[in-house]
């Protein structure tokens, strides 16, 4: 394997791992802020205990989100030096703004929240977590504006650099406002953060259901379940909606990605979607296409049933992404989205009743559904990043031209192994701690504390 392949593999593994922790942080921060404000408002100790219990799980997850994020910042320079040189004038800015504007807020106020229970007023304490929730989501906005720019490089000007031994050309910032208002970035922001809310909702619903099934702390977990179900249902709905708009945006900005995620090989007017499709990449066609709903793909991506969708065979061969990976990821993500919507809808309906504990089937489904939104999120990133290939910046810079030139195979091979081992161990520790504290429930947590 060469430096390029290993670097891509390493980036894939480290960013996928990072994104195990980020979505829960995004959504759970909002749920916990809600719980703490309920406590401030009602003075009901139950809400305080909920804040502390879910807060404990939040923090275990949060620690790993932070440290795996540092890796991302390092890797752009370490493995993707040519990329960083080429786009740094534009891409560096949102990252630096993210650190200055959002990450500081988040990291400072999480410290206040953890250690400040007896140092500041109740109200100020709730504000601390509200700031954390706000900053976490703001942080996502800047990161996704940066990623959105890679998908749709607006506001850039290609510039030749003369008399400089270190660099000969790069993309320079021409219009910062365009980068800030990039629709690809904003759609990505809404779609991604909302999918994080779904992760958090299913996490809270699942753990609550586990305890309700065991008759632990019924009032505590019913309240948690109810809050999470409503939150999850709204988030599911909005994820689907933003996903739909995102599709329209992709049709406009990334035609190769659109063709790959629908597995459309030949240019078609009024393209349909086949419920069962098996792409055959070697022969550049679909091996199976049955149960076709006519005109649906055109309708969804162009809002016009007769719109023309350009097929993969009509693009240069070296400019189309891996079709199967993009297509299957998109399909499974979409199906999961719909499945989760129905689970959340049913959960919301049931959570309004007094006897949630009698709906054992739903509760069991809720427990087993915890991984679903995680999976959907990972698949979503595969669609976004694999579907953009062979470009690292769509239409501007290819991934193969972006990799560091001074790094050799041995270095990346060793780092890849080290990352895998370190991340593997951290992942095990994290799952161990989450399940330990999740299963233990709030009762034990507080009894132990008083002893």
């Amino acid at each position, binding site marked *: 394997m060469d430096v390029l392949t290993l670097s891509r593999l390493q980036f894939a593994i480290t960013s996928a791992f990072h994104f195990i922790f980020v979505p829960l942080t995004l959504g759970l921060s909002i749920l916990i802020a809600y719980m703490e404000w309920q406590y401030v408002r009602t003075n009901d100790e139950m809400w305080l205990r909920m804040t502390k219990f879910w807060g404990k799980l939040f923090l275990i997850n949060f620690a790993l989100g932070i440290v795996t994020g540092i890796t991302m910042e390092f890797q*752009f320079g370490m493995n993707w030096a040519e990329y*960083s040189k080429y786009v740094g*004038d534009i891409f560096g800015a949102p990252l*630096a703004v993210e*650190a200055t504007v959002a990450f*500081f807020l988040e990291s400072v106020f999480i410290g206040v929240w953890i*250690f400040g*229970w007896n*140092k500041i007023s109740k109200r100020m304490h709730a504000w601390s977590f509200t700031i954390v929730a706000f900053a976490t989501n703001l942080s996502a906005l800047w990161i996704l504006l940066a990623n959105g720019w890679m998908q749709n490089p607006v506001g850039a000007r290609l510039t030749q650099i003369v008399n400089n031994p270190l660099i000969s050309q790069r993309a320079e910032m021409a219009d910062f406002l365009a980068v800030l208002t990039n629709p690809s970035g904003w759609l990505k922001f809404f779609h991604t953060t909302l999918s994080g809310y779904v992760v958090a909702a299913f996490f809270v619903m699942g753990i609550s259901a586990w305890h309700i099934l065991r008759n632990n702390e019924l009032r505590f977990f019913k309240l948690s379940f109810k809050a999470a179900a409503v939150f999850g249902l709204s988030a599911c709905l909005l994820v689907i909606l933003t996903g739909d708009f995102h599709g329209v945006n992709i049709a406009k900005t990334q035609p190769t990605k659109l063709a790959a995620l629908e597995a459309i090989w030949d240019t078609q007017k009024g393209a349909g979607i086949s419920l069962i499709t098996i792409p055959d990449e070697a022969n550049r066609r679909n091996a199976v296409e049955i149960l076709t709903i006519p005109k649906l793909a055109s309708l969804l991506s162009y809002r016009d049933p007769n719109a023309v969708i350009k097929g993969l065979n009509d693009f240069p061969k070296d400019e189309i992404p891996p079709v199967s990976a993009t297509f299957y990821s998109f399909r499974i993500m979409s199906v999961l989205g719909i499945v989760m919507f129905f689970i959340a809808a049913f959960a919301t309906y049931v959570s309004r009743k007094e006897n949630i504990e009698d709906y054992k089937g739903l509760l069991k489904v809720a427990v087993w559904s915890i991984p679903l939104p995680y999976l959907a999120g990972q698949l979503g990133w595969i669609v976004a990043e694999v579907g953009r290939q062979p470009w690292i910046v769509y239409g501007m810079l290819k991934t193969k031209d972006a990799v560091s030139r001074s790094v050799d195979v041995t270095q990346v091979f060793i780092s890849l192994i080290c990352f895998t081992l370190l991340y593997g161990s951290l992942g095990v520790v994290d799952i161990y*701690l989450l399940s330990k504290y999740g299963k233990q429930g709030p009762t034990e947590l507080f009894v132990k504390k008083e002893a």
Partner: protein
Amino acid sequence: MEYLQIVWFALWGLLWAVYFMLDGFVLGTGILYNFIGKDDNEKRVIINTVGPVWNGNEVWLITAGGATFAAFPTTYALMFSYLYTALLLLLFALIIRGVCFEFRGKSDNPRWKSVWDKAILVSSFLIALLFGVAFGNIFRGLPMDAGGYHGSLFTLLNPYGLVTGILFVCLFTMHGALYLSLKTTDDLRERARATAGTIWGILLTVAVMFLVYTYFATKLFDNYISSPVLFVLPLIAVAGLVGIKVFYAKGYLFRSFISSCVTILFVCFTGIAGLFPNLIPSNLDTNYSMTIYNSSSSFLTLSIMTVVALTFVPIVIAYKIWVYRVFREPVTVKEILTDTEAY
């Protein structure tokens, strides 16, 4: 254009200096943690002294990195790829240090705790050492020319790099000992205070070695000879170093800690002023030095970043000061035993 490049050179230096000043005492605390904390309660007290602030302090590093990326992308790209293996080690140390505090208290198993205790020591020490080695090599210049970079992890571990590494370790350990002597009570405080006294002598020796060695191993002093006014920077660093001891001897530990802050800041400023206009000089062919002129962002990007930095960094400083005020009291064993949320 040129003035903005100079502004960003100064901000770049300032961000790194502030990062070292703030994370410095957390790293120093981590290095001393196992030696000063005699039992589990005392160790927990130590963690709780840095607990509320360490995360926010580390963000200065992320910001310094982000600012390098945004303002000097070519430097960011080349430095990170040239120093690949060293930065990988640093990154792993940062990752491990970043989870220690959170994970250590999550189980009462003594073996679990002992693993994280060791991890706190090793990661804190490595971070301090590796940053020192990295900056020592930046001061010294990297072997770069038309053929790219001609070094490896082992070329970085040259005597000058190592001396700078040891200097950083000593500076931060001193800083951490003073921080702990302000933030703890009773026996623990006494141990921290005594440690600070012992380290000062070692720090002084290493600092003198570093200063002399710098004269022979780097070109940092060229700038000082052409503009002697710059000598005020190392003089303040030395004054800080002396101040640590003077205030310490009189029992003014807070002032001693402030002197330690001044020392760290001005050691960084001394080095960085000597680099100007280089960010990373080449010690093979100066045409390939990374300077503020050949590796900066465009005028527009630098202007935008200036507005962002001048607006938000003061806000950050304001709320950080508030946080330090909220947590100004020393942490006691009694307090962590009664506070249900303490680490």
